[in-house]
C-alpha cells in the first residue's frame, strides 16, 4: 500500500517529519518498506498485514497516525451530498432515468449502492488528482475512472463506474455467472466464467466480474453522458476464489478479499458524488443523484469484555486502566467501564479483525509500544511434560558425529526430485513414489523414496568440478505411498570414491569395497547395534560381485555395494563408487539399551597365529563360524591377519593367517591348555577344509 505524507495530512495534523513518522508506523505494525521523496511530497510504501483491510486506505492509516500521535482524525465533509435513504425503493428527487438494483446472491453481495449521474463530461481529471494517483503508482485515465481510483485509495472502497446507457433498462442484477458464460473484461481479455463466480449483469448481459474487474461492454468512454456508479460489498471468499480461478488480481479484488466495511459502501459513494459534481459534470449542468441502496445497511457491533488484569498478565507489564481506555478510544473503540479495571469494548465496523480480548490486548501492546515491554525468562515452576522418552538418545546426531569422525562430509539435497533421476537409478517411481500435484517443474515432481539419486547427482556435480575424492553422506527422510498412507522414514546414504589417503607418505591407492564395509561396521558398532548379518544380495544398483544386504534377524537394514557400470554411465561418472543405504528407523530399533559394565580382564592373554592354505572358494564367514563353534570358552577373539593369493600359492587356493586370542577371567592360562585348543583348531581345519598348514 502506497500513501503520501501530504495526503495523510488532509485527515490528521502531522507535526513530525516523514522519517520519524515512518519509524513510528513501522513500530506500530505498519512496516514502512520504503520512503521516497516525490516532488513536494513523500511516498510511504507500507506492508499491510492480511488482518487489517482498514489500513488499505489513506483514512485508515491516518486514523492510526492520529492514534499514535495523539491527534484527532478529520473525516471528509460529506454535507450536501448526503441523501436521506429510506429503503431500497427510494429514488432521489428529480430522477428521470430508470434505476433498479436486484441482489440474487445475498450472501455474495451484502450491500450494493447504485447511483446514476447525468450530464457527465468525460475529460482529464484535475492536475492535483493526477499527480496523487501517479505518486501511488496509478496511471490517470479520465476524471470518472480517476475519481473511483482516488477514492479506492482514500477510503479503501473499490467502486466501478458503468456507462449508464449501455446498461439495459438501468437494471443491475447481482448473480452467479452461468456455466461457460463469457465476458471481455476491461483489460480486453475474454474470460470464461462459471457458477462459482459472482457477476454484475443487466437484463441481457454480464457487465462486470463482481469486485474484480468491469466489462468492456459497459466501459466509460469519452462519449459517455451518464454513468452508473457502483459501490458495493462482496463476500471475501467468493472474490478470492473468482480471482484465483480467473488468475486476475486487481486493487479492487485485493481489498474485497480482505473485507470491505458495509458503512464505507455508503460514505465512499457520497464522497464520489461530491467529486463527480465538482469535476465531472458538464458546465452549467447539475448532476442528478438517483440512488438505489440494496441489501443490508447495518452491521451488528461487536462487544468484548476486557480486564486490565488479563492485559497485564498476558503482556508481563502493568498497564493502567486509564491507559487502556485512552489507547482503545484513540483507535476508534467505544470503551465503557463496568467495574474498576473491567471494560466493555464496542468494536467499530471497520475492525472486523477484533473478535476477542487478546485482539484488544495486541492493540494496547502495539500502541503502548512493544519496546516498552520488559525482558524476562519464563519461570520453571514445575517439571515439564516428558516430551522425550527417558534416556532417549539423539541417535541421528550420534550417527552424524560418527560419520564425521570417519571423514565423511554431510550433504543436504532437495527432497523433491524428477522422474528422470529415479529412472537413472533403475527405480520405477509409479508404485511407491509420491507425486506432487502442483510442482513448479518436472525437476520437483516426486517426493523421493530413496536418497541414492540425489547422492549420485551430487557426486556427478562435484566430479565435473574436479573434486573426485569424496566421502559424503546424507541423513534425511524418505517417503513412500503405502496404500493411501504416507510412510516417512529416516534414511542414510553414504558414499566413498577416489583416493584412500591424501598425504605424501602413504601409498596412493583408491578406496574399495572393504573401506565402505569397514565404515558400516564401525558405525553400527559405535551405535551399539550387534549381530548384523552381511549377506550377498543382488541389486539393480550394484555390480554383481560387490553387492551385500544387511540384516538383523529377519529385518532388512540396508544395502551396500559397488555402483554398476550402467548407473555410472547414467550419471556421467567414470570412477568406481561404493555406496550404502540404511533404513535408520530399523537400525535404531536394534540399538542396545541394556548396556552394562563388564569387568576388565585381570589375567594376561595368549595369542596364536594360525596360517594355512585353503580352497579359494571357502569364505571367511565359513571359517569364522568354524572357529566360533569350538566349545572352549577361552577363545576370546578371532581376527583375520592376512589373506594372500599369488606367488607360491597354487591357483584356486589362498593363504590365510588368523590370529586367535585366548584369555580366562579367572586365572593365568598355561601354555599346555592353549596348545591343546590350538592344535584342535588346526586339526579341524585340515579335516573340514583340507587346509594345508604353513
Amino acid at each position: 500500500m502506497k500513501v503520501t505524507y501530504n495526503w495523510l495530512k488532509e485527515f490528521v495534523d502531522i507535526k513530525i517529519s516523514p522519517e520519524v513518522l515512518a519509524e513510528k508506523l513501522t513500530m506500530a505494525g505498519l512496516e514502512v518498506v520504503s520512503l521516497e521523496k516525490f516532488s513536494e511530497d513523500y511516498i510511504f510504501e507500507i506492508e499491510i498485514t492480511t488482518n487489517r483491510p482498514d489500513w488499505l486506505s489513506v483514512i485508515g492509516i491516518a486514523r492510526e497516525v492520529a492514534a499514535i500521535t495523539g491527534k484527532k482524525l478529520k473525516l471528509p465533509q460529506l454535507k450536501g451530498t448526503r441523501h436521506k435513504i429510506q429503503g431500497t425503493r427510494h429514488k432521489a428527487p428529480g430522477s428521470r432515468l430508470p434505476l433498479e438494483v436486484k441482489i440474487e446472491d445475498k450472501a455474495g453481495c451484502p450491500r450494493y449502492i447504485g447511483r446514476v449521474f447525468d450530464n457527465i463530461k468525460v475529460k482529464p481529471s484535475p492536475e492535483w488528482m493526477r499527480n496523487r494517483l501517479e505518486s501511488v503508482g496509478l496511471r490517470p485515465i479520465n476524471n470518472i475512472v480517476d475519481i473511483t481510483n482516488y477514492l479506492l485509495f482514500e477510503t479503501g472502497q473499490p467502486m466501478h463506474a458503468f456507462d449508464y446507457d449501455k446498461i439495459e433498462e438501468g437494471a443491475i442484477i447481482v448473480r452467479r455467472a452461468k456455466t461457460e458464460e463469457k465476458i471481455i473484461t476491461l483489460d480486453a481479455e475474454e474470460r470464461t466464467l462459471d457458477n462459482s463466480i459472482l457477476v454484475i449483469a443487466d437484463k441481457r448481459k454480464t457487465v462486470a466480474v463482481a469486485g474484480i474487474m468491469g466489462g468492456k461492454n459497459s466501459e466509460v468512454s469519452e462519449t459517455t453522458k451518464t454513468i452508473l456508479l457502483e459501490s458495493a460489498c462482496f463476500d471475501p471468499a467468493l472474490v478470492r476464489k473468482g480471482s484465483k480461478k480467473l488468475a486476475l488480481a486487481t486493487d479492487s479484488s485485493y481489498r474485497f478479499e480482505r473485507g470491505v466495511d458495509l458503512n464505507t459502501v455508503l460514505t465512499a459513494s457520497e464522497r464520489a458524488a461530491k467529486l463527480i459534481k465538482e469535476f465531472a459534470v458538464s458546465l452549467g449542468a447539475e448532476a442528478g443523484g438517483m440512488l438505489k441502496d440494496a441489501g443490508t445497511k447495518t452491521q451488528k457491533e461487536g462487544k468484548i469484555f476486557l480486564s486490565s488484569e488479563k492485559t497485564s498478565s498476558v503482556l508481563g507489564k502493568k498497564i493502567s486502566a486509564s491507559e487502556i481506555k485512552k489507547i482503545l478510544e484513540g483507535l476508534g473503540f467505544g470503551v465503557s467501564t463496568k467495574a474498576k479495571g473491567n471494560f466493555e469494548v464496542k468494536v467499530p465496523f471497520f475492525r472486523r479483525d477484533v473478535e476477542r480480548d487478546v485482539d484488544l490486548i495486541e492493540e494496547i501492546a502495539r500502541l503502548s509500544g512493544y519496546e516498552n515491554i520488559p525482558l524476562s525468562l519464563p519461570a520453571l515452576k514445575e517439571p515439564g511434560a516428558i516430551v522425550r522418552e527417558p534416556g532417549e538418545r539423539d541417535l541421528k546426531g550420534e550417527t552424524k558425529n560418527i560419520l564425521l569422525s570417519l571423514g565423511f562430509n554431510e550433504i543436504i539435497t532437495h527432497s523433491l526430485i524428477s522422474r528422470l533421476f529415479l529412472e537413472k537409478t533403475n527405480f520405477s517411481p509409479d508404485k511407491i513414489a509420491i507425486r506432487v500435484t502442483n510442482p513448479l517443474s518436472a525437476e520437483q515432481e516426486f517426493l523421493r523414496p530413496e536418497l541414492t539419486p540425489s547422492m549420485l547427482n551430487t557426486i556427478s556435480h562435484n566430479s565435473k568440478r574436479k573434486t573426485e575424492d569424496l566421502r559424503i553422506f546424507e541423513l534425511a527422510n524418505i517417503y513412500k505411498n503405502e496404500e493411501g498412507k504416507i510412510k516417512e522414514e529416516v534414511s542414510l546414504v553414504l558414499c566413498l570414491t577416489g583416493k584412500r589417503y591424501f598425504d605424501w607418505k602413504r601409498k596412493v591407492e583408491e578406496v574399495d569395497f572393504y573401506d565402505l564395509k569397514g565404515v558400516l561396521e564401525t558405525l553400527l558398532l559405535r551405535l551399539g547395534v550387534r549381530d548384523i548379518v552381511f549377506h550377498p544380495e543382488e541389486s539393480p544398483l550394484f555390480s554383481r560381485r560387490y553387492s551385500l544386504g544387511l540384516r538383523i534377524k529377519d529385518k532388512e537394514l540396508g544395502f551396500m555395494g559397488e555402483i554398476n557400470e550402467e548407473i555410472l554411465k547414467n550419471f556421467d561418472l567414470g570412477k568406481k563408487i561404493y555406496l550404502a543405504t540404511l533404513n535408520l528407523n530399523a537400525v535404531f530399533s536394534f540399538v542396545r539399551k541394556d548396556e552394562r559394565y563388564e569387568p576388565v580382564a585381570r589375567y594376561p592373554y595368549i595369542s596364536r597365529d594360525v596360517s594355512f592354505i585353503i580352497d579359494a572358494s571357502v569364505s571367511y564367514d565359513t571359517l569364522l563360524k568354524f572357529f566360533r563353534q569350538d566349545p572352549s570358552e577361552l577363545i576370546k577373539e578371532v581376527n583375520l591377519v592376512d589373506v594372500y593369493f599369488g606367488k607360491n600359492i597354487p591357483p584356486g587356493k589362498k593363504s590365510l593367517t588368523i590370529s586367535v586370542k585366548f584369555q580366562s577371567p579367572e586365572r593365568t592360562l598355561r601354555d599346555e591348555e592353549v596348545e591343546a585348543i590350538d592344535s584342535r583348531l588346526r586339526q579341524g581345519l585340515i579335516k573340514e577344509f583340507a587346509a594345508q598348514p604353513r
Partner: protein
Amino acid sequence: MEEEIKNLEKLLKEDLSHIDTLEGLEILKASYLGRKGKIAEYFQKMSGLAADKKPAFGKLLNETKEKINVHIIDKENSLSRLKESSLGGEIDVTLPGLYFEPGHKHVLSRTVDEISSIFYHLGFVSVEGPEAETEYYNFQALNIPPEHPAHDAFNTFYLDVRGKEKYLLRSQTSTVQIRVMEKHKPPLRVISPGRVYRPDATDASHSFMFHQIEGFAVDKKITFSDLKGTLFAFATKFFGQDLKMRFRPHHFPFTEPSVEVDISCIICKGNQKPVTSDQKKCSVCHGKGWLEILGAGMIHPNVFRTVGYDPNKYTGFAFGMGVERIAMLKYGIEDIRLFFENDLRFLKQF
C-alpha cells in the same frame, strides 16, 4: 716418505668431505688410525730407517696422527650433531603432517545445532515431526481458515495420495506445535527443527525447500515479556552481545499478539543515515539498519482450543525462524542455492 706423511692430512680432508654418516666415518677412521691403517703402516716402515732419522720421523708421524685424530673427532662431532638434529639426513620436521581430515557437518546442520544448544540451556527439548502432513495440521489447527488471504503466505505443495485426508508438504514447522500439544500436557518448552516446502520460484534468496526452527513454551502465566526475554537471550548469544533488537507488531493467524523480530544489521551495525538520503545503501540491510530474523507471538486461543487446552488457564508463546536466513546472515552467504548444491569446496569451509 716425509712428503707422503705431510700429504696424509690433505688426503684425509678430501676423504672426509665425502663422508656423511657416522658409519662411513668409522670405516675411514680405521683406514687411517686402525691397527692396519695408514699411520700404523708408516710406523712399521719406521723400523727400516736409520737410527738418527727415527726421532724426527716419529715426531712427524705422531703429530700427523694427532692432527688426523682431531679432524676425525671434529667430523664425528658434526655428524652426531646432524644425527640428533631435526633437519639432518632423512629427518625434516618441516615436512607436512599426515593428512587426516574429519568430515564437515553441513553448515545448515551446524547452524541448527548452534541455535538448538542455546535453547537447550533455556530448558527446551527438541522434537521432530513429519514433513508430509495433512491440511488439518498445516492450516486449520493453526487457525488459518481456508479461502483466507493469510493462505497466500503459506503457498503449499499438495501430494497425490488418495487417502482419507488431503496431504501436503508442510509449509512451516508450526505443525509440530499441534502434534506435541495433542499428546502432552503443559508445561512445555519445545523446539522443532526441520525441512519445510513452499512452491516459490528458485533464486538467490528463495528456495522451494528450506529449514525452519519452531519453538514454543506453554504454561500458566507465560507472558509476552517472557517471549521477548527468551528471544533476546537467543539473539545475543548467537549473534553477539552488542546486538540491538527490535520487536515490531505483525500478524500471524496462530499468534495474538504477533511480532516480527529484527536485529541491528550485522554489517553496517545500523549506522545508516535515514532512508531518504542518497548515500550508498548497505548491501545486507539495504539501508534499513535492521534485519528481520524471525516471527513470533503469544499462541492464539483458537490454537489452544483445537488441542483441548483451556485458554483461560494457559498462555504460551511460539516463534519460528528460517535456518538458511540465519546462516546467510551469520556467514555472509549471498545465495541460498549454495546450501543445496553441495559443492565440497563450499561445504568444507564450515
